């Protein structure tokens, strides 16, 4: 295939990408965000699939069997946690205007310049091998297309004849144009994201096309290809872990490395966090992205098997995706596949180099310039343009470094082996990032120690030996150990042998990195700024809705702040920012006035978007006098917040108590109302009871007065008798009401003596003998002559006896009445039983008779005698003495009242 055809197609494809990016950016300027879509977000995340995936997976499958899948199963495994992890990272980053992974770590540990530099160095040095394999893949892609079947490609005579060099130059130009067109305070590049998403579709479609061609064109489907593979030992061993030499630990490490890579690789952080348009896209991306990974991996194994079965060792397995269509004469499919691989490589290089250049300029160059006063002061150089230039240069430098690495080291390794070196480097950021998100106690010193330890071990165990192998540095430290110490061999550190280099390096670097991070964190004190940042990162949800408490007290002239913003963001952008602030806060003091902390934070946050948090802090520090704030003060501010929380808790409990009190009051009120009603009833009843006899006395007296002459003696006597009776009734009633009042007012007995119930009974019966005789009622008394001693008020107990006896008298059989009195001792009680032989008490009335004003009516007996208070008073007196009263009755067989009083025992 002609070289011009390949280049022509590639250029046409790049032009298409530019058109897409240009159109999307134009729409964005019009206020329409094309990339604000969960599917585009998920597709742009597929920047994860690079030339490594497109070409390298197949190559990896021929040596490591199914282990290539670990690189995709790791991210898939993490997908369920995105909802917490990625979301949190996005919220923090949007809140703090974080623009790179270095910025993120630096901001978490107190906006540290040192950490920014450190993470940038790890990222740049760690990712260079990864970029180099993209260049290599495109280069051999071109070579495969143009030289297929023509034998090995001769080494180029000069660098200008090397396809790799021109690929590097083209990539650099492409990246510069795409990634550094303008300086956006939020580092958002919608056009870039759209192009990446489009490239993801091209990758998937072309790779699947090759896969279908191989599986169903060359072979008869999956069954055919796999069955044939089992016949050959070299392909059969690719089908299981055991036969391809994948151990359980190396699989675990591979999964873990790729699980970290999906969030920690600078380009993944850039696409998934910095370029994210809304956290609402995460839920959909959580299943769409793993689905993409699944689809692009289906045909890897069939292609690898087919290549292995069809070709001799002369063709490198990394090129099977192109070689298979070419060998079968499908040149156009091969060209399409090349465009797919080209997409994979360019999208990776563009995003990665852009992300790295942001880090490089914000964390290394700008702090350096600020420190040396090259920017700042009264220098009126346009900072924005200068920043872009710095980024362009850093992109060029990184690509040159990658080209050099590929030429000198990369050629001796296959794609995936080199890529995994970068994965291991990126994983070094994991403790600092994940610890920083969930562990408040983690300190700046801990993060620095962890990163330094991890980075040194990584460098010692992976890139340095590979450079030694390539002959760049001396090989002795690999074979004999550093300084000749056998324990310090890079592939068998501390004597650990039997692991492949990646697993070995990943184990030691991550283990010691995490250990250093944790131990140093626990043993150091966080700075004040670090403390507030830690709280913000760990408890970001507290800050999203609520007010940020500003702990740093800073003062700066408004004019200075304006000058700083002008320099870094350009005049128009800074003017619009100040207008925005003025609108939000209603005022903006003139230039000579001192700005409040709030405005300074606003400027710093916006500046951070352009030059990173650490640099922004340095710049602001140069114009703002910062009042040194003591730890006590910080504690006080934090304490205030805590007090507020406690206070509200106390309020809650108080509220609960109030509710209970209110309930009690309501109940008491109900009781009072009830008592009031009872009292009213009582008075009504008493007056009624009084009126009845008064009425009859009045009526009869009037008759006697008016008709004295006409009445005979008998009549007159009868009337007078009634008047006397009724008067008795009235006085009785009044006495009893007085008794009740007395009983009510004195719940306890006044005079307590030892009294003999039997003596009381006998004297009462004696006093009432006349009444018994009148009614013709006989009275049978207990035979026993013993004393029945109780503690009590003698007069009151007599009253009980009188009441019981008169009650019995009232209800006795009118013809042959009999009252039976009994006294017993039962346990610690004296039982007094008074039995009559009247009609008895109906069942329904038994509970009522002890209530006040209960009178039993009956047809035969007509109007009841008595006041209805007797038994009520009796009951009250008995209760005062600590006893009980009850009634037994069978209708027609009389009633028995039983009083139970505590026996007085000497």
């Amino acid at each position, binding site marked *: 295939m002609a070289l011009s055809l390949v280049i022509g197609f590639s250029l046409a494809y790049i032009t298409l990408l530019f058109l897409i990016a240009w159109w999307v950016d134009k729409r964005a300027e019009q206020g329409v965000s094309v990339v604000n879509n969960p599917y585009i977000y998920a597709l742009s995340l597929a920047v994860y699939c690079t030339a490594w995936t497109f070409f390298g997976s197949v190559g990896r499958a021929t040596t490591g069997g199914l282990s290539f899948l670990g690189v995709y*199963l790791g991210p898939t495994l993490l997908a369920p946690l995105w*909802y917490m992890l990625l979301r949190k990272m996005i919220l923090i980053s949007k809140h703090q205007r974080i623009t790179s992974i270095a910025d993120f770590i630096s901001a978490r540990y107190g906006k540290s310049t040192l950490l920014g530099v450190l993470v940038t160095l790890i990222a740049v040095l760690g990712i260079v091998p990864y970029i180099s394999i993209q260049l290599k893949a495109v280069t051999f892609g071109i070579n495969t297309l143009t030289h297929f079947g023509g034998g090995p490609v001769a080494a180029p005579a000069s660098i200008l004849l090397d396809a790799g060099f021109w690929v590097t130059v083209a990539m650099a130009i492409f990246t510069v144009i795409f990634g550094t067109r303008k300086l956006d305070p939020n580092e958002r590049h919608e056009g870039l994201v759209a192009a990446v998403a489009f490239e993801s579709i091209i990758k998937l479609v072309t790779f699947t096309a090759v896969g279908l061609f191989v599986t169903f064109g060359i072979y008869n*489907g999956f069954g055919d290809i796999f*069955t044939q593979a089992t016949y050959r030992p070299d392909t059969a061993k690719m*089908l299981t872990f055991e036969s391809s030499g994948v151990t*359980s630990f190396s*699989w675990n490490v591979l999964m873990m490395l790729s699980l970290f890579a999906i969030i920690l690789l600078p380009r993944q952080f850039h696409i998934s966090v910095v370029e994210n348009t809304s956290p609402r896209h995460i839920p959909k991306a959580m299943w769409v992205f793993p*689905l993409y990974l*699944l689809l692009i991996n289906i045909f890897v194994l069939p292609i690898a098997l087919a290549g292995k079965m069809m070709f001799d060792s002369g063709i490198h397995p990394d090129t099977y995706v192109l070689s298979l269509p070419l060998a079968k004469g499908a040149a156009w499919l091969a060209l399409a596949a090349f465009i797919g691989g080209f997409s994979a490589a360019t999208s990776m290089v563009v995003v990665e180099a852009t992300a790295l250049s942001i880090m490089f300029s914000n964390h290394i160059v700008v702090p350096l310039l600020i420190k040396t006063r090259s920017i700042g002061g009264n220098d009126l150089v346009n900072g924005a343009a200068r920043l872009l230039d710095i980024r362009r240069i850093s992109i060029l430098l990184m690509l040159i470094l990658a080209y050099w690495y590929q030429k000198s080291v990369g050629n001796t390794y296959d794609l995936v082996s080199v890529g995994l070196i970068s994965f291991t480097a990126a994983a070094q950021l994991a403790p600092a990032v994940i610890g920083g998100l969930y562990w408040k106690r983690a300190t700046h010193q801990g993060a620095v120690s962890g990163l330094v330890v991890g980075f040194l071990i990584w460098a010692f165990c992976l890139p340095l030996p590979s450079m030694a192998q390539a002959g760049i540095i001396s090989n002795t430290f690999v074979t004999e150990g550093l300084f000749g110490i056998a324990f310090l061999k890079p592939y068998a550190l501390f004597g650990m042998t039997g692991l492949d280099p990646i697993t070995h390096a990943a184990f030691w670097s991550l283990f010691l990195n995490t250990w250093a991070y944790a131990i140093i964190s626990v043993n150091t004190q966080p700075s004040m700024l670090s403390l507030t940042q830690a709280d913000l990162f760990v408890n970001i949800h507290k800050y999203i809705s609520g007010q940020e408490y500003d702990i740093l007290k800073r003062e700066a002239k408004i004019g200075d702040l304006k000058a700083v913003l002008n320099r870094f963001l350009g005049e128009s952008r800074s003017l619009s920012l100040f207008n925005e602030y003025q609108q939000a806060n209603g005022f903006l003091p003139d230039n000579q006035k001192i700005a409040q902390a709030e405005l300074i934070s606003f400027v710093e946050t916006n500046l951070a978007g352009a030059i990173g948090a650490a640099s922004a802090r340095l710049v602001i520090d140069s114009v703002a006098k910062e009042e040194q704030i003591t730890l006590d003060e910080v504690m006080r501010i934090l304490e205030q917040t805590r007090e507020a929380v406690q206070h509200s808790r106390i309020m809650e409990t108080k509220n609960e108590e109030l509710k209970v009190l209110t309930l009690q009051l309501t109940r008491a009120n109900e009781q009072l109302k009830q008592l009031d009603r009872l009292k009213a009833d009582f008075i009504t009843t008493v007056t009624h009871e009084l009126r009845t006899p008064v009425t009859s006395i009045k009526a009869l007296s009037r008759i006697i007065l008016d008709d004295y002459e006409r009445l005979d003696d008998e009549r007159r006597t009868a009337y007078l008798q009634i008047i006397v009776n009724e008067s008795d009734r009235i006085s009785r009633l009044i006495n009893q009401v007085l008794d009740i009042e007395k009983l009510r007012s004195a719940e306890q007995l006044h005079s307590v003596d030892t009294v003999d119930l039997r003596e009381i009974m006998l004297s009462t019966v004696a006093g009432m003998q006349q009444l018994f005789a009148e009614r013709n009622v006989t009275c049978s008394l207990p035979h026993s002559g013993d004393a029945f001693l109780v503690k009590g008020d003698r007069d009151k107990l007599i009253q009980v006896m009188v009441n019981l006896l008169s009650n019995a008298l009232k209800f006795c059989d009118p013809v042959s009445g009999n009252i039976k009195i009994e006294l017993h001792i039962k346990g610690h009680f004296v039982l007094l039983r008074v039995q009559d032989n009247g009609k008895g008490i109906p069942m329904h009335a038994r509970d009522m008779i002890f209530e006040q004003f209960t009178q039993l009516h009956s047809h035969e007996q007509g109007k009841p005698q008595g006041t209805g208070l007797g038994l009520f008073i009796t009951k009250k007196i008995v209760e005062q003495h600590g006893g009980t009263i009850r009634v037994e009755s069978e209708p027609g067989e009389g009633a028995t009242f039983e009083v139970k009083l505590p026996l007085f025992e000497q």
Partner: protein
Amino acid sequence: MSDDRSSQLIILFFAFVVLLNYPVLQIFDRKELWFGIPALYFYFFFIWLTLIVVVGLVVRKKRKS
């Protein structure tokens, strides 16, 4: 932010960590073809698809309510 959904997703994560690692993989690491597909390869893609579907369902279920 629903705690329910978060817990469900964390449980899913740990379940799939077990499913996609040794010693469970040992069971499927055998020289057999299932439906014409190598057993381990078949297992990986089956679990993979299951994870996608389950995550999709968890995420979707909550959005409705």
